[in-house]
């Protein structure tokens, strides 16, 4: 065998390990799942939205609007009287619909007088994620289509019609119902945009803290082994709990400092993309109080401790700096998954399996907490705190237990599925 062939063969053999392939397979699986989710969103976007229609206008433009709505949307409630609004809202809500559209009695009359005809839209908003606002976006598209059709009709009928009026002969008056609250004059998309812009930074902060501090903990354990300092440390008169806690606290402090530095830059980056939608959610009582910030801080702190404990657990498997770098990968993924999930959908509107999966990831909770607190959903926040605290305590206990066994030094394990990973790092 030639020198080149010999070296290539040896290198390939060294690289063909679970540690090399498992992270990439995980990434591929995550991207595939995300691709499927996006495909799902596209499928949802092509489906006609479910609505209710109350048409009080039997004249020409009212009929045009009503026909378009009936043709291009799935109407589950039809009426000609505004008095049946409450019944309609209930029906649409029960049928998982998105809105009731009211075409008032004077709709055609106003347009003929070159005054904008008004659509009254009552939105039923289920969540504030990207997926949750697809249906409302489709309805908005329908109303825009009606607007275009009426414009065309007006131009056909009268070529001297006022140009600025004919471009937008209709207007929307909207009210959104979201989490038992009434938002007069705001569409679901506006609410979603406002909430997203308010809560986008928190998941990124959490992700960065976890990734940075987690990397520090795992590397610290690996360096203790690589630099041959671990044996000495374990024979000193110090409790195993103190060693584990000391490493976690130090990493948390440094991780926080690094994250703050990182976020200062990110803040400037994001400020370049922010725009005002002209709505202040505070006027609707959607505001975080100082007590809410304490809840978020507590949630973040506990998630950080839980995350670092998890990193410490992984760090016990790291033999050297190189293997530590590989082990930070699962933590990075765990931090990214809830960030994407909360971006795409509201926790409340997730399928049950995905809900359980999201809840089980400790890093999800500080990401979910701000929105939950805005709508006073303390059950999710407190439940999350209890879960994350229990997760942290159990994980730290496992790490301390490992520190008390031979596993840390000799790498033996009772768990057969971990054996290849451990052998690789011995």
């Amino acid at each position, binding site marked *: 065998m030639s020198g080149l062939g010999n070296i290539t063969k040896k290198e390939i053999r060294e690289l063909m390990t679970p540690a090399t392939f498992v992270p990439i397979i995980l990434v591929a699986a995550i991207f595939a799942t995300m691709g499927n989710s996006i495909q799902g969103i596209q499928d949802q976007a092509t489906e006609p939205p479910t609505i209710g229609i109350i048409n009080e206008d039997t004249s020409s433009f009212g009929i045009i609007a009503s026909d378009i709505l009936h043709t291009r949307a799935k109407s589950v409630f039809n009426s000609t009287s505004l008095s049946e609004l409450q019944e309609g809202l209930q029906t649409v809500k029960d049928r998982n619909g998105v809105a009731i559209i009211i075409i008032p009695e004077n709709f055609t009359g106003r347009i003929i007088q070159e005054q904008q005809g008004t659509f009254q839209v009552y939105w039923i908003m289920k969540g504030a994620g990207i997926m949750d606002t697809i249906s409302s976006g489709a309805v908005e598209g329908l109303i825009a289509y009606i607007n275009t059709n009426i414009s065309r009709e007006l131009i056909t009928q009268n070529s001297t019609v006022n140009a600025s009026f004919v471009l937008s002969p209709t207007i929307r008056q909207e009210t959104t119902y979201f989490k038992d609250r009434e938002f007069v004059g705001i569409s679901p998309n506006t609410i979603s945009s406002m909430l997203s812009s308010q809560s986008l930074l928190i998941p990124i902060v959490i992700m960065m803290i976890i990734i940075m501090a987690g990397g520090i903990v795992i590397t610290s354990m690996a360096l203790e082994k690589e630099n041959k*300092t671990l044996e*000495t440390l374990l024979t000193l*008169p110090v409790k195993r709990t103190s060693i584990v806690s000391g490493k976690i606290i130090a990493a948390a402090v440094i991780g926080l400092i690094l994250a703050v530095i990182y976020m200062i830059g990110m803040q400037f980056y994001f400020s370049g993309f922010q725009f005002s939608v002209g709505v202040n959610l505070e006027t609707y009582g959607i505001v975080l109080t100082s007590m809410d910030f304490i809840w978020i801080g507590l949630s973040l702190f506990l998630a950080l401790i839980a995350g670092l404990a998890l990193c410490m657990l992984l760090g016990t498997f790291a033999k050297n700096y190189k293997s530590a770098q590989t082990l930070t990968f699962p933590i990075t993924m765990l931090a990214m998954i809830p960030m994407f999930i909360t971006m795409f959908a509201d926790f409340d509107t997730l399928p049950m399996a995905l809900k359980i999966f999201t809840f089980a990831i400790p890093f999800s909770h500080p990401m979910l907490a701000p929105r939950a607190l805005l709508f006073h959903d303390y059950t999710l926040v407190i439940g999350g705190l209890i879960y994350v605290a229990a997760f942290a305590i159990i994980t730290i206990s496992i790490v301390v237990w490992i520190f008390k066994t031979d596993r840390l030094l000799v790498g033996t394990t009772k768990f057969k599925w971990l054996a290849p990973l451990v052998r690789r790092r011995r």
Partner: protein
Amino acid sequence: MAAIEVKNLVKRYGSTDAVKGISFSINEGEIFGLIGPNGAGKTTTLRVLATLLSINDGSVTILGYDLSKQAGEIRKLISYLPEDAGAYKNLTGRAYLQFIANFFDSKDAPTMVKKGIEITDLGKRIDDRVDTYSKGMMRRLLVGRALMTNPKMAILDEPTSGLDVINAQEIRKLVKTTAQAGTTVLLSSHNMLEVEYLCDRIALISEGKIVEEGKPKALMEKHQARNIEEVFVRTVHE
């Protein structure tokens, strides 16, 4: 009173028996040498006695404490120097000694550090970062760390490993002085001259079993050998 009492100690790694029921005792203030070929079970035995590894069978008592139940108490009294130990590379030698001393009684810490610096004999280099040290300097730092805490029991795995002749000789003298001051010393070494010079008693370990034990002179007489190296070869290989 025996400082260490080992009875039928068994240590397994999975299905491999590293130590197969060894027994020995070490008296207070004694220097006891554990010698044997590579893979004989010396380091495993030392790691067990240093509270790093659990035991599968048998019993170990160190300075009156049961190893299985009172490891925390034992750690207050012992000092362990692993064969291939290292120090935190981003610390200076002095900072490393201070870090170790901080685990002990705070009022003794300054004296410990002072003693550690004397033992290491690194001069001005004590204030340099550890990652700039040569192998010999690192070993002296670690020996200083191990002996500065005035342990009741010092467990030294190849204490002069990596040291040149002069430095090794100084360390041997230091070990001797430490034992004379009342510290019990358990050491392992591949250097038979060192063992002969230092140890009051030795045990030869091979394939996880003690095959010979006694005073160096008595063993040489028993095996009609001129030195411990010959005893070692005859006992282990013949």
